[in-house]
């Protein structure tokens, strides 16, 4: 499905050049792969590199055997990559229904749109005509963001910390969304998360720290070590 070969990324600012990603090699062939690790370790940058938002300084990205390294965001989206932002973007005047239609890339009945919203635990009729603007809370925006990924239904869906900004009450709902997505999906889910219950769904867990993959393996191999307080993911024990 997806293969990252020797991906590196360096960012420059006034303090000089900083290596954010350093020679990342990763294959995503499983149905559900979770990336975890300490904040500032490079996880979100890696997700953005895959979506085409950030261009890597070195390395190649292969999707289903095709080199997509030089393709832009739109072309990658059309080839089947979806990306849920950690901080969803607000739009004045664009309604939830409009956004779902754009995501689906086709005519969408109100019923279909409502179905996507229901799947992320939203009472559809309260939201379908709302604008995706500052009147929605952070948690509502996150769930709408996830609904747009469901509406796209692509081969590879990337989620950058879907749990961030979601209250505890909604959290169990969110887990159910991902459990169901695991059953339904015809491709792969790549998810950045600190949450043990999300990591528990994963077929493979990848730990990224200091811009490198520090370890990867099945959840049975990785989770006990993370839970044991090895230190890569201290927030795991918080929930």
């Amino acid at each position, binding site marked *: 499905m997806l293969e990252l070969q020797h991906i590196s990324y360096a960012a420059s600012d006034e303090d000089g050049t900083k290596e954010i990603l350093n020679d990342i090699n990763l294959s995503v062939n499983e149905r559900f792969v979770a990336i975890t690790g300490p904040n500032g370790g490079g996880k979100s940058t890696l997700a953005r590199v895959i979506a085409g938002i950030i261009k890597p300084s070195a390395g190649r990205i292969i999707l289903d055997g095709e080199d997509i390294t030089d393709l832009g965001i*739109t072309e990658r989206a059309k080839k089947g*990559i979806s*990306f849920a932002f950690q901080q969803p*973007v607000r*739009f*004045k005047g*664009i309604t939830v229904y409009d956004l779902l239609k754009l995501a689906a890339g086709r005519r969408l009945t109100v019923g279909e749109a409502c179905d996507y919203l229901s799947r992320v635990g939203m009472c559809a009729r309260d939201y379908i005509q709302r604008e995706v603007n500052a009147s929605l809370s952070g948690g509502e925006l996150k769930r709408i963001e996830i609904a747009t990924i469901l509406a796209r239904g692509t081969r590879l869906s990337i989620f950058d910390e879907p749990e961030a900004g979601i209250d505890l009450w909604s959290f169990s709902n969110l887990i159910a969304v991902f459990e169901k997505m695991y059953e339904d999906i015809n491709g792969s889910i790549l998810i950045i998360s600190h949450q043990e219950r999300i990591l528990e769904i994963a077929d493979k867990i990848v730990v990224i720290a200091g811009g490198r993959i520090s370890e990867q393996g099945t959840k049975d191999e990785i989770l006990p070590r993370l839970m044991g307080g090895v230190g890569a993911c201290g927030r795991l024990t918080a929930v």
Partner: protein
Amino acid sequence: MALDKIQLELLREIADLHGVPEGAYNIRSDGQLAGRATTANIDIVTKTDKPGIDIYIKDGTVNESMHIPVIIEQSGLKDLVYNDFHIGENCDVTIIAGCGINNCGSQDSQHDGIHSFYVGKNSRLKYVEKHYADGDGSGERIMNPTTVIELAEGAYMEMDTTQIKGVDSTKRITTAKLAERATLIVREKLMTHGRQVSDSEFTIDLDGDDSSANVISRGVARDSSRQVLVLRINGNARCYGHSECDNIVMDSSYVQAIPEITANSVEASLVHEAAIGKIAGEQITKLMTLGLTEAEAEEQIVAGFLK
């Protein structure tokens, strides 16, 4: 009355009309009266001292609407019209105005509409105004609307004004005076492109206690167009005034927003918000991750913003 194809097209753009409207109407075409209907409660009288009409709406008229579209197809025509609306007390009416210019010639076509609204005590008025122009001639399409509003005690007026396409030059002046408990809500939407120029100036006097005004202006300036907006609210009593202008600048356009709020009474409460900026990069990126091209993303963002 019979309407030709271009007239019908312009009417559809400015008034969502698909033919002769129901209820009261006055259609002005190329500076001449092209059709009129009155009702038991709404009378329309041609002015004798200057071009234009007086509209009289009886006290207690509710759930009635009237259309007063102006269409211009004649290149080189400069049309000046005074429309005075005398709205009685305790009314609830909708007035739909609009100007459409189709200029295929080389001379400038211009419509200067001066609309005055005298809204009686405790009446509600919704006023919808839409400006549109097309035609492939080199002559400019110019519209200079002036709106004069006087709201009596307890009167409520909503004004929706839209100018999305084709008008080369516009100078818009809106003034309002509000008595006790009167409320004015203005929503302005404007898009300029090419080398178009738009000047809009609002002056709102909140004269009566517990009067309030809320002016929301959204504009998109593309290409090398220019927009200048003055939002002036004078709080002369115990009142509440809020104005908000929000503009997207694109390409090499120019936008200037000039807020002016003045408290002539210590009981006045006035707020102004203004924001000008290009489309946020994250918004474009997000829509691109949904498969839209950059140009398609921009189009969607602008269309939503002006919806």
